[in-house]
């Protein structure tokens, strides 16, 4: 067994030497770039979730490593961060009541991941932790540090579970595909309830399980058209909006009677 491994090592070494004799001493470092075709995405009335495609390129890729499929890419689309309260229901006199709660600062509202391979195959848990990469490794800062670690742990887990269940945190294994040796395409999911605001797209390059480089881009998700106008008016001119809502209701009631009257 030991002999075989030695043989393989020698074989690959000689192959490497044969392919790039001049660069053996100073191989150019790999680099990763991502580009978005647009800097904003608009949500319209029919929005029921979508796939967002991000293209990227891998520069100075080692053809051998690429051929062996030892380059891995993880692309993350992270939504704006907001404070979140997690509440737990407990039974009091038979009734389920929100009792315990934990507030977390700056929790990304959404977090979509696309990878070339399952996360556990790309690199080891420690690297993920260092990079704070993947929904399971996001650090959630509790507002109240005095709570016991067990409580914070429990509520953090519940927060991730809820986010995953509502589709806001998602993982698309195989969502990153190499189109050629240097070009890749990542497909991340936008949940139907994706929050508006500035999202950050980040791409992480791994080579044989080692983190090499990161690249990022910004993406603005906004509401467009009719819905956007309604939302803006409701917040900027809330009193007029209220008057409008009431008038619309009365008008509908009156018209409804004209159209459907039965007496």
């Amino acid at each position, binding site marked *: 067994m030991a002999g075989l491994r030695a043989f393989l090592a020698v074989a690959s070494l000689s192959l490497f030497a044969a392919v790039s004799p001049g660069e053996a001493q100073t191989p150019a470092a790999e680099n990763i770039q991502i580009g978005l075709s647009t800097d904003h995405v608009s949500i319209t009335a*029919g929005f029921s979730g979508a796939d967002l495609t991000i293209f990227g390129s891998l520069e100075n890729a080692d053809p051998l490593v690429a051929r062996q499929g030892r380059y891995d890419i993880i692309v993350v689309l992270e939504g704006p961060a907001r404070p979140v309260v997690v509440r737990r*229901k407990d039974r009091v006199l038979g009734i389920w009541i929100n009792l315990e709660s934990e507030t977390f600062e700056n929790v990304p509202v959404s977090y979509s991941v696309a990878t070339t391979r399952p996360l556990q195959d790309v690199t080891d848990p420690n690297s993920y932790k260092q990079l704070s990469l993947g929904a399971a490794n996001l650090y959630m800062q509790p507002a109240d540090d005095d709570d016991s670690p067990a409580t914070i742990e429990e509520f953090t887990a519940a927060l991730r579970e809820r986010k995953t269940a509502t589709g806001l945190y998602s993982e698309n294994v195989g969502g990153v595909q190499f189109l050629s040796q240097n070009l890749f395409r990542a497909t991340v999911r936008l949940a139907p309830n994706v*929050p508006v605001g500035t999202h950050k797209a980040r791409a992480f390059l791994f080579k044989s399980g080692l983190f090499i480089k990161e690249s990022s881009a910004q993406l603005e998700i906004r509401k467009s058209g009719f819905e956007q106008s309604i939302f803006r008016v409701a917040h900027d001119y809330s009193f007029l909006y209220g008057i409008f*809502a009431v008038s619309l209701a009365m008008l509908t*009631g009156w018209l409804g009677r004209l159209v459907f009257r039965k007496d």
Partner: protein
Amino acid sequence: MGIYLPIAEISVNVFVLLAMGAAVGFLSGMFGVGGGFLITPLLIFYNIPPAIAVATGANQVIASSFSGALSHVKRGTLDFKLGGVLLAGGIVGSTGGIFVFGFLRRLGQLDLFISLLYVVLLGTVGGLMLVESVNALRATRSGAAPVLKKSGQHNWIHRLPLKMRFRASKLFVSVIPVLGLGAGIGFLSSIMGVGGGFIMVPALIYLLKVPTNVVIGTSLFQIIFTSAYTTLVHATTNQTVDVMLAFLLMAGGVAGAQYGAKAGQRLRGEQLRALLALLVLAVAIRLAIDLFVTPPNLYSLSGVGLT
């Protein structure tokens, strides 16, 4: 067909909402209730955030009660004077309710409080009405003349001062209980997203002894204004009124209300009351079950200072 709701910020099915509106509108026209006590729980079951369900429910109630009230104006079964006094109390109660609403939302107990209020109020009102109307039905069947309260029989409410005459209702009663009733209903309107018809109708019948035929029109009249006020205040303070959602519910609702009003005319007073009682009890039981059954998710998320 999906549609994106601008304020609730989720996609929903248009036809589900139209059907929901139509079904509730039918019942609302039939019983003279705004239908808010059905719409709000239904919206919550349909994953609309409770704060938005309550505010939008109030908005929807305006349309169905306006439509229903018009029918009653035409038939002359609406006491404007009584409605006006109830309304004055309603505005005061509604204002108080908005503050309590905001306070409970910050505490994270809004949903629980809404459910408890629904269960207790609907359960009590529904139970009392059912017992009374079943007794009345039994009396009619056994051949005896329906024993409504004898006109000379007065309770403590009729001994209060500041009496006022309400001609359309053939009533001479103190304004204190009328104002108090209006205030209580205004309070519930802003917290529960209901017009309050399911309390108003029995209270007017049993407490103030208003004739059943005038009760429904008058209750609808008061509900229009209380829920209009509630809608306005929710829109300005919480920005939780979704006009798109409300419009879909209304469109279905007004159509249903007209058919419901027609159906209601064919039923006798005590039959109508028995049916309304059963409906009210059904909603109460449904909500009570939710309080006691282990929820599928013990944990819930909410923004800070948001819905």
